[in-house]
């Protein structure tokens, strides 16, 4: 498997606090790689660095050899790195379907002015976006809710909508920050299934998640952060046997990492 994303020596300081400290790892194509670690370890910050929401203090991120860190979020998105949010963030006053349609923005061939005039290209774009949105909604089991206003959706479906929005941008890497948070077991399992299906469709997935059983089940490899530093990297079984990891999680429940 080819290297897809390469994080090298990335550091982020907030004033005196080093939130992410000289972290390096790489992600292979069509891999599901999870970043775990205690609260405040710097996982979300790492994701924001990768998706160019934050500028690294030092270090860089490369996607297929091309630097994607330190740009603007919409440019990183254009290059294929898209992040869905930890908080359930959606366009809450739009319909579910409109949420997904608008997220096709990167695929539009018509210009803004073209959309204003309603040119042929613009109409073709609209039709294509609508069709693709319907497919994505079907994939995520949201078809029956397509015309619901997004803010009225139950929690689990909101999470799915967040992912649908991410998918609509047609990314090569999708960054999911705590996609299972606040879900019950059944919802989590459904989501795990869905994430796997996305990978089968050719997506590379980076995941931050606290639900250890789910993480161990879904991930090909894991990166463990503690106080901003990478303390371990490996397959789920390697991580579960790693002394440093066990130490980092001591004080929290031992079963948290599935021991």
């Amino acid at each position, binding site marked *: 498997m080819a290297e897809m994303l390469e994080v090298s020596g990335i550091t982020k300081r907030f004033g005196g606090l080093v939130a992410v400290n000289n972290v390096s790892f790489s992600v292979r194509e069509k891999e599901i790689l999870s970043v775990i670690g205690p609260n405040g370890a710097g996982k979300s910050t790492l994701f924001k660095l990768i998706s160019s929401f934050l500028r690294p203090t030092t270090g860089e991120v490369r996607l297929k050899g091309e630097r994607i860190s330190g740009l603007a979020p919409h440019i990183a998105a254009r290059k294929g790195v898209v992040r869905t949010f930890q908080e359930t963030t959606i366009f809450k006053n739009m319909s579910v379907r409109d949420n997904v349609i608008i997220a096709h923005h990167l695929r539009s061939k018509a210009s803004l002015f073209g959309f*204003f005039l309603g040119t042929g290209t613009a109409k073709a774009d609209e039709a294509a976006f609508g069709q693709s949105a319907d497919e994505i909604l079907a994939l995520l089991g949201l078809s029956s809710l397509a015309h619901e206003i997004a803010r009225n959706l139950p929690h689990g479906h909101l999470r799915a909508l967040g992912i649908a929005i991410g998918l609509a941008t047609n990314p090569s890497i999708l960054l999911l920050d705590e996609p299972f948070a606040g879900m019950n077991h059944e919802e989590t399992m459904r989501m795990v299934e869905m994430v796997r299906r996305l990978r089968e469709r050719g997506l590379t997935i980076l995941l931050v998640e606290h639900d250890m059983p789910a993480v161990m089940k879904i991930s090909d490899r894991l990166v463990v952060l503690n106080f901003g530093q990478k303390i371990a990297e490996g397959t789920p079984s390697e991580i579960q046997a790693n002394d440093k990891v066990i130490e980092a999680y001591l004080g929290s429940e031992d079963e948290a990492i599935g021991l």
Partner: protein
Amino acid sequence: MTVNRTTKIAAVVAFLAIVFIAVPAAISASGHFDLYYTLTSVALLSIASAGVWLTFYIGRINIGQGAYALTGGYVSAILVMDHGWSFWLTLPVAGLFCAATSVLIGLPILRLRGVYFAMVTLVLTEVARLLALALPITNGAKGIVSIPLPGALSVFGITLIPDFATLQNSRLAFYLLAVTLMVVCFAIMYRLVNSRIGKLCQSLQQNEELASSIGVNIAYLRVIAYAVSSFFGGVSGAIFAAISQSIYPSSFTVTDSVNFMLNCFLGGLGYVFGPMLGTLVLYFGWDLLFQTGQFQLLIYSGLMIVLMLVLPNGLLSLAETTRKKG
């Protein structure tokens, strides 16, 4: 809630018939010619308000439209008086000048949100007034007066619009000009909002971070919307200067900026035609309350507060609820 196509066309035709035929007919029958001036003002103010509405649509509270109206008025007046330009040419130039200025101003300030953006725009109106007082080209507090009426507009020797000075009824001419521009302006707004651009604007209003993570160039879109908004402000100010044949630093003040915003609130921020209705109601409401003398402002403010509490989504939300019930 889909209003079908025939209903829409019928509504547009009815509206055009009212503003272009019925209103002039009624005014000349009744002899209330001063109504032309009032309705011209409403039309022009609603154009400026439409601009403010568009900035609301991308999630910014804009209390600075007075600055652009004032700028547009001065640009037109100066070009006509000092450079002998035709008013008709100064009209788009005033709009474009304001749009360009707003790009320069908008690039830094559109990063601000909520009350911070609102405060900066409020200051902008005052800055514009002070500049008009201080700059040599604007002629200080004396302003620019005795601006000639718009001349004839001819293309390839064909006169499209006659010289306003030769007209018996220049008030009617100004009314028709203002109303035509209002119709064009709201047609543009309607198209903007109902195209994909409208959805993009909404995405900014609802969640800028997410919009940016799905690849929307939010800085660019914000500036475009603000430039269109300021263009409308400039055009409306330029016609005001032409009608009153004068422009002063106090022609548009903070009060006007606030009123543009209130027009939008009153009509409804969710409806393209909100600013038009809002301007009409506020303008006539204020005039009606004139009878109450010293209580005018008190009653006016009280009514505004009550209206906003009872109808937070504006007057046009009434139409929607009745339609849903019916």
